[in-house]
């Protein structure tokens, strides 16, 4: 049995499959599309059009590197405003052509930099949250590694929120939580345990809908196995979601987030 902290380490493991591994192994065709049409092309986010069985979908995911060189290129999966705006452009495009959207979440958080603030990091994330809540196509969000803070949520508003068994989803890193609330950054294990960041905890809290089982020891041990599990889940959910009337789909999506933290008087 893995502890919550073990899962944090697994989620961050450099050998863990990343968005491009899933894209390569799950979809029959993939055409990558670049740029936000405003500023640049953020390589921490990969997006494009893909085919899966009888569906054509838009796929968007955060990409971490497996080597230092790759990580430098991908900014360690930390997205800048232009990355969120690229994602939104591709999601709007998906809506126009009636394509369901699949997002892969894997980020230590939105990038905290001077340029990111100059270009409106807060506005970019906020806009994605607002727009994703009303896009008229099914949205499936899958946390594949670490989903940290608003930087993860900006790809995380959808009809089905899914986590891999050993992935984590949190408001900030356990180290950050420990240093702020316990005033002791070394209490990261305790923080991880108490923060409710594992797939199991978040399913119980009704934040997520589904947990995808990982191969023994974690996804890094069997990429074919995990990508096959994820593929099955995507197809199953597409079969369900594409049959739902659009108005009902949107109403249910609204309710899904509306009920979180709802308080009865």
């Amino acid at each position, binding site marked *: 049995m893995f502890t919550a902290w073990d899962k944090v380490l697994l989620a961050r493991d450099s050998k863990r499959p990343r968005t491009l591994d899933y894209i390569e192994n799950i979809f029959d065709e993939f055409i990558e599309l670049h740029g936000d049409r405003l500023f640049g092309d953020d390589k921490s986010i990969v997006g494009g059009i893909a085919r899966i069985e009888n569906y054509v979908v838009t796929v968007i995911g955060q990409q971490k590197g497996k080597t230092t060189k790759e990580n430098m290129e991908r900014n360690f999966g930390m997205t800048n405003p232009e990355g969120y705006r690229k994602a939104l452009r591709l999601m709007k495009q998906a809506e126009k052509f009636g394509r369901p959207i699949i997002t892969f979440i894997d980020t230590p958080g*939105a*990038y*905290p*930099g*001077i340029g*990111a*603030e*100059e*270009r*409106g*990091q*807060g*506005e970019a*994330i*906020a*806009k994605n*949250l*607002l*727009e994703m*809540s*009303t896009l008229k196509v099914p949205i499936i969000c899958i946390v594949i590694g670490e989903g940290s*803070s*608003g930087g993860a*949520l*900006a790809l*995380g*508003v959808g009809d089905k929120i899914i986590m891999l068994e050993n992935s984590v*989803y*949190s*408001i*900030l890193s356990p180290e*950050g*939580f420990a*240093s*702020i*609330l316990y005033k002791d950054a070394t209490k990261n294990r305790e923080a991880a345990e*108490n*923060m*409710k*960041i594992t797939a199991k905890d*978040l399913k119980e*809290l009704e*934040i997520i809908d589904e947990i995808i089982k990982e191969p023994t020891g974690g996804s890094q041990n069997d990429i074919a196995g995990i990508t096959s599990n994820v593929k099955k889940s995507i197809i199953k959910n597409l079969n369900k979601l594409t049959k739902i009337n659009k108005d009902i789909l949107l109403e249910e*999506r*609204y309710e899904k*987030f*509306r009920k*979180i*933290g*709802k*308080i009865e*008087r």
Partner: protein
Amino acid sequence: MIIDKIKKMNPEDIQFSSKNEVAGDMLVGKWVKCDACKEILYKEEVHKNLSVCPNCGKHFRISSRRRIKQIIDEGTFEEIGKGLKTTNPLNFEGYEKKLESLQEKTKIEEAVTTGIGEIEGEKVVLAVMDGNFMMGSMGSVVGEKITLAIETSIKLRLPLIIFCVSGGARMQEGIISLMQMAKTSAALAKHNKEGLLYISVLTDPTTGGVTASFAMLGDIILAEPNALIGFAGPRVIEQTIKQQLPDGFQRSEFLLEHGFIDRIVERKNMKTELANILKLHRRCD
């Protein structure tokens, strides 16, 4: 990280407002030092000046109670969304106790007060955050009250104004706090589709999850002068890039220059300015 920073940023500021507001205007001393120009000021004069330094124009942080008094026509404010309590989703030790003692001290229930009132006779739904209550952080109650305010504004077809001040998400509520960003933004998407007006007013400081949700989603975004506004806190950015930040970084004037807010409005003009905007959006149908 962000919350920690605010605690350290302007100790005199917080002291200034907490001494005056929290103790219900029982002035502890008659004098206060402005942390911007270092001038020693007579407190009563500062308050008469809407808690703005008469010497240098520094806008001190103010309580939600004082803010409502400054903005809303006397006797027209009716509070909504009262009596909500957090479920303490992480069972965070001491959290409920802390909230209770803050409620006692600040005489408000949570970091946001919501209601319906009039501004120069224009009826609006208003939400006013309060930095004296856990740095104005957003947990389930703040998210729920903001969402209820948005939904009330839709139901009554009234304009919505939110005064923001926040250190970000309420860490003690973990992922539930994070999800309030999605909840409030989705409610604003509905509000937007109804063709209703939403004015967001950013005050010092507006950071983190509030910036990355309802603060930045106004049809019109106003800010008080020199307010700190950003997603990541300055200290986090400094630690990440290992560089000193430029002067004026993440201040209202910086955001105006980069195109992320519409106008900077001094506190003495805020009510009139809001009233003017409201009147320009009066519906003819």
